[in-house]
């Protein structure tokens, strides 16, 4: 069974600073995908960034980047130049290749302060 652990329940950061959200996961498969989703108070889950396990290069999307350590089963998200609109719950998730079942962590509440 796949599991995802987000050990930090809550973090806060000042606007324009950089923050890193941690995530560890467990899966027995070699073919899988990793995701970070953002859920603002509006409740809509939005994909922030994805990483295919077979790719060694860390994914980057504008201010968002990941540090994917496959051997350690670690998948952290770095948010640079934090903005007020980044305030949200952030969920790490893993998807086994060929499966439809996204397995989520418990989430982490990020607050960006002005």
């Amino acid at each position: 069974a796949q599991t995802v652990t987000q050990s930090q329940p809550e973090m806060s950061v000042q606007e324009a600073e950089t923050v890193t959200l941690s995530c560890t996961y467990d899966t027995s498969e070699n073919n899988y995908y990793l995701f970070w989703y953002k859920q603002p108070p509006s409740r809509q889950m939005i994909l922030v960034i994805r990483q295919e396990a077979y790719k060694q290069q860390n994914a980057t999307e504008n201010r968002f980047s990941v540090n994917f350590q496959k051997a350690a089963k670690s998948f952290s998200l770095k948010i640079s130049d934090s903005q007020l609109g980044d305030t949200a719950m952030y969920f790490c998730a893993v998807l086994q290749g060929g499966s439809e079942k996204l397995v989520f962590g418990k989430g982490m509440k990020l607050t960006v302060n002005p």
Partner: protein
Amino acid sequence: DAGVTQSPTHLIKTRGQQVTLRCSPKSGHDTVSWYQQALGQGPQFIFQYYEEEERQRGNFPDRFSGHQFPNYSSELNVNALLLGDSALYLCASRSGRGAFSYNEQFFGPGTRLTVL
């Protein structure tokens, strides 16, 4: 493009009742998945529908059932409601085409179900 839409937004039921939640996928999507998100938790996979059939199911009892219509929209039905069924129910859609790649899932805003 309206994205994934869900109805109703909120719903209040009493224990033992039955409820039906509805989802319209994003235009061009044919695969619909349902998730239950309890307060303070991450979403949990209920099941996924493709070509009007349930293709994969999570660890949920048979009280949870679903349906997909020819236009790809979907319903989630929960019978004999329990207090523990109170949660945000999320629908997600994606295109099932592309055997060797994973197409992004788009989530709807959810239906907040409260069971009293």
